[in-house]
C-alpha cells in the first residue's frame, strides 16, 4: 500500500463539475485506483476528516483542490490539505482563478444576502431572517462558517504547486496531468498543467483574417458564419485571450469562448488584455463613434473576467 500514491480530492466553493470531469475519464479512473490510494474524495470515495488531521504533514502525495475559497471553512480545509500534501494542485478554473463563483466579487456580500434572503419573488413575506455565523435556537447555539466579504482563488490562501485550468478541465487533460504525477514527470513549481502556452485561436478551425470592427453583435442577434472567426463577425469571443487546452468545444459549436482556461501563458490579467486587443481593432478614429461601437459590448467586464475576477489585478469591486 505504502508504495501507492496517496491522493486527496476535495472541493471548496465549486459545483462538482470538476469531480464529474474525473468520472468522465471513465475506465481511466480504475487505472488510477490501481496505482493510487484515494484517501479522500467526497464525491465517490469515503474518507474522514479526522483521519486527514491525523495524517503526518506531507503524508499525501497529491491534494487536488477544486472550487474557490468562499468561506472560512473552505480556507480551513485548504490550509489543512496544503500541510498534509507534498503537491497542492489547484484543480479547475475556480481553484485556479476563482471561477464563476468569483463573479460575486463584482457585487457585495450585503447584496448577496439581501437578494437571497430578503427580497426575491418567492421569499416568505415579512420573515426578515438572515442566516448568522452563530445563532441560538431553543437555547442551543448553532454555528455556520463565515461567509467572506469576497471570493479568493486557492493560491491567495495557500501555496499552490500546480494549476489545472478548465471549467471543468477536459478529461484528456486530466489524464495527462495525473499521469505526470504518477510518472513523477513534473514541470517546474507554479506551472499551469494540462493546457498549452498559446491561445485558443491556434486550435480553432475557423478561418482568420485581418480584423477591423465597425459593429458588435450579441450572439442571438446574428446567425454567424460557421467557418470564419466569430470576432471578425462582430461577435465577442474571448478565444484570442484564452489559453488553449479545452479542445475548442465552444467555438466549434458556434458559441463564443468565454475564457474558462484563463489567460495565455505569461499574461497577467486576462480581461485587461482582451480589452486592449478588442478596443485596438475598433474601426474608427472618432471618439463618439468609438464609444458607440463599444456600447455594443454590454457587461464587458463580466465577460472578460467571467472565470477570473478574483484572479484579476483588481480582484473585486470597490463600490462603497
Amino acid at each position, binding site marked *: 500500500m505504502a508504495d501507492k500514491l496517496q491522493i486527496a480530492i476535495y472541493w471548496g466553493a465549486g459545483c462538482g463539475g470538476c469531480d464529474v470531469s474525473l468520472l468522465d475519464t471513465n475506465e481511466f479512473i480504475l487505472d488510477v485506483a490501481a496505482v493510487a490510494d484515494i484517501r479522500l474524495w467526497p464525491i465517490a470515495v469515503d474518507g474522514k476528516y479526522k483521519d486527514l488531521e491525523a495524517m503526518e504533514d506531507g503524508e499525501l502525495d497529491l491534494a487536488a483542490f477544486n472550487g474557490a475559497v468562499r468561506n472560512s471553512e473552505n480556507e480551513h480545509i485548504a490550509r489543512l490539505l496544503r500541510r498534509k500534501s507534498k503537491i497542492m494542485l489547484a484543480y479547475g478554473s475556480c481553484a485556479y482563478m476563482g471561477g464563476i463563483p468569483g463573479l460575486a466579487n463584482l457585487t457585495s456580500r450585503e447584496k448577496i444576502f439581501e437578494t437571497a434572503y430578503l427580497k426575491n419573488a418567492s421569499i416568505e413575506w415579512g420573515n426578515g431572517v438572515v442566516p448568522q455565523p452563530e445563532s441560538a435556537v431553543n437555547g442551543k447555539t448553532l454555528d455556520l462558517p463565515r461567509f467572506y466579504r469576497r471570493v479568493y482563488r486557492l493560491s491567495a490562501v495557500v501555496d499552490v504547486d500546480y494549476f489545472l485550468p478548465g471549467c471543468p478541465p477536459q478529461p484528456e487533460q486530466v489524464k495527462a496531468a495525473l499521469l505526470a504525477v504518477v510518472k513523477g514527470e513534473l514541470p517546474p513549481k507554479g506551472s499551469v498543467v494540462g493546457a498549452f502556452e498559446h491561445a485558443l485561436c491556434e486550435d480553432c478551425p475557423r478561418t482568420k483574417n485581418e480584423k477591423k470592427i465597425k459593429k458588435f453583435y450579441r450572439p442571438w442577434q446574428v446567425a454567424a458564419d460557421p467557418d470564419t472567426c466569430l470576432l471578425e463577425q462582430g461577435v465577442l469571443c474571448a478565444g484570442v485571450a484564452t489559453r488553449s487546452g479545452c479542445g475548442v468545444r465552444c467555438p466549434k459549436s458556434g458559441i463564443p469562448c468565454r475564457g474558462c482556461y484563463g489567460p495565455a501563458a505569461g499574461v*497577467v490579467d486576462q480581461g485587461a488584455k482582451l*480589452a*486592449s486587443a*478588442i478596443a485596438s481593432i*475598433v474601426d474608427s*478614429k472618432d471618439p463618439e463613434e468609438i464609444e458607440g461601437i463599444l456600447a455594443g459590448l454590454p457587461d464587458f467586464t463580466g465577460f472578460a473576467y467571467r472565470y477570473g475576477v478574483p484572479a*484579476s489585478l*483588481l480582484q473585486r469591486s*470597490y463600490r*462603497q
Partner: protein
Amino acid sequence: MSFEPKIVGFLCNWCSYTGADLAGTSRIHYAPNVRIIRVMCTARIDPTFVMKALTDGADGVLICGCHPGDCHYSEGNYKMMRRYPLLKQMLADFGIEPARVRLEWVSASEGQRFADVVNDMTQRVRELGPSPVRTALIQDMAER
C-alpha cells in the same frame, strides 16, 4: 496634513514626455504628485498598466499622448483613444471612480498645458481622496 495623492503618469516619448521636459526647461512649476513613466507611444499602454498602478497604490493614473493626427507613429494615439472608454467602463464596474484615470493630448510644445493638466488632475484626485483599492484589500486580509 491634507491628503496628497500619488499619481502615475504614462507619457509618450515624442510629444508628451518632451512637453513635460519643456515645462521643465521653461521652469513652469506644477504639482509634484505625478511620477512619470515613459513609453514610446500611448499605443504601447495596455489597460493592464493602469490596473497594475491602481493595485500597487496609485490614487490616480494620467495618460498623455500626441494630439490626434500628430502621432509620431501616425496612428498610435488612436489605439489608446479606443482602449480608453473600455478601460473606464471596466474601472467603473470595479467601483473605481472614473476621474481617477485620465487621458490627455499634450504636444511637445505644450509645456504649460502639461503643467495645467497635472495641476487640475491632482486637484480632482485630491478631492476624491485616497484610492479605495489598497484599504479594501487590507480589510479583506483582516477578515481572514
